[in-house]
């Protein structure tokens, strides 16, 4: 189970208490009635879905009930950090990314632990 640090409860809580709420830092246009359909589509539907570091909204729904933001690696699913809603997008350093990167292909950590009749068969 993932442990997620809630910036309002100030501690790590089990993931069952949380719910993901999509991409973070999407500003709602102030002139909603005037924008074109194309701009509305871009705001409403189009998401970056990046491979690597993503910024997401999370909600501690079965806890303090608060929305907050998180920086996470979309391949390894590991959290880099969480921060309160309304705070600026934090700068993520290379060291922070390296700490949560999935192991590279070909390294022992990326090899399957157990396969039937194969090279990596359990001894």
């Amino acid at each position, binding site marked *: *189970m993932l442990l997620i640090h809630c910036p309002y409860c100030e*501690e790590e809580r*089990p993931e069952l*208490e949380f719910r993901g709420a999509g991409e973070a830092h999407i500003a709602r246009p102030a002139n909603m009635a005037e924008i074109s359909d194309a701009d509305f589509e871009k705001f409403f539907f189009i998401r970056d879905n990046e491979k690597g570091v993503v910024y997401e909204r999370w909600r501690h729904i079965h*806890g*303090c009930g*608060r929305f907050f933001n998180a920086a996470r690696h979309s391949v390894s699913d590991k959290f880099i950090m969480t921060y309160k809603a309304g705070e600026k997008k934090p700068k993520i350093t290379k060291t922070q990314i390296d700490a949560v990167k999935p192991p590279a292909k070909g390294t022992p950590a990326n090899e399957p632990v157990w396969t039937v009749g194969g090279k990596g068969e359990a001894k």
Partner: protein
Amino acid sequence: MSKVAQRTGPLDGRNFGTTGVTLTPAAAATRISLRAREDGLATAKKILGFAPPGKPKSSATKGSINCLWIGPDEWLVIDADDSGLPAKFAKEGNTKLSAVEISHRNTAILLEGAKAVDVLNSGCPQDLSSASFPVGACSRTILGKSEIVLYRTGEHAFRVECWRSFSDYVWSFLMDAAKSA
């Protein structure tokens, strides 16, 4: 002869115990869902007689009134005696805070015994060791598929607040867990 309506609790008459833990439905209590920001806290303090706790997972008690921290601007007030808290909040009429009476939305199960933590941990994923969840700690969390508010009242005693309509599920869940704990 006049007919008088009698209020019955959802878990009335139930009782369960093993050598490790006992389950008891809690007596009726007045409950208030209190929402307030900084500018409403003074009023809350005046009515409760003490300031709502500001630290996560903490609670404050005075007399029969318990005030449980739920979120940065949310508290659950439980008053074992009927000291008229909802009326006091209504009379104050402070629009900077919201005090909603939820006495009959919630019900509670009292869980006591040496195995209390094991029983709860069969459905609640939080760390309930004395170090991270000491006596007086409280938190909204989940038990199985139901949301609960957990309040540690003693080293081996917990109050499990849940929604009235979920209480049958929560009771059965705890009972099953107690059998195998």
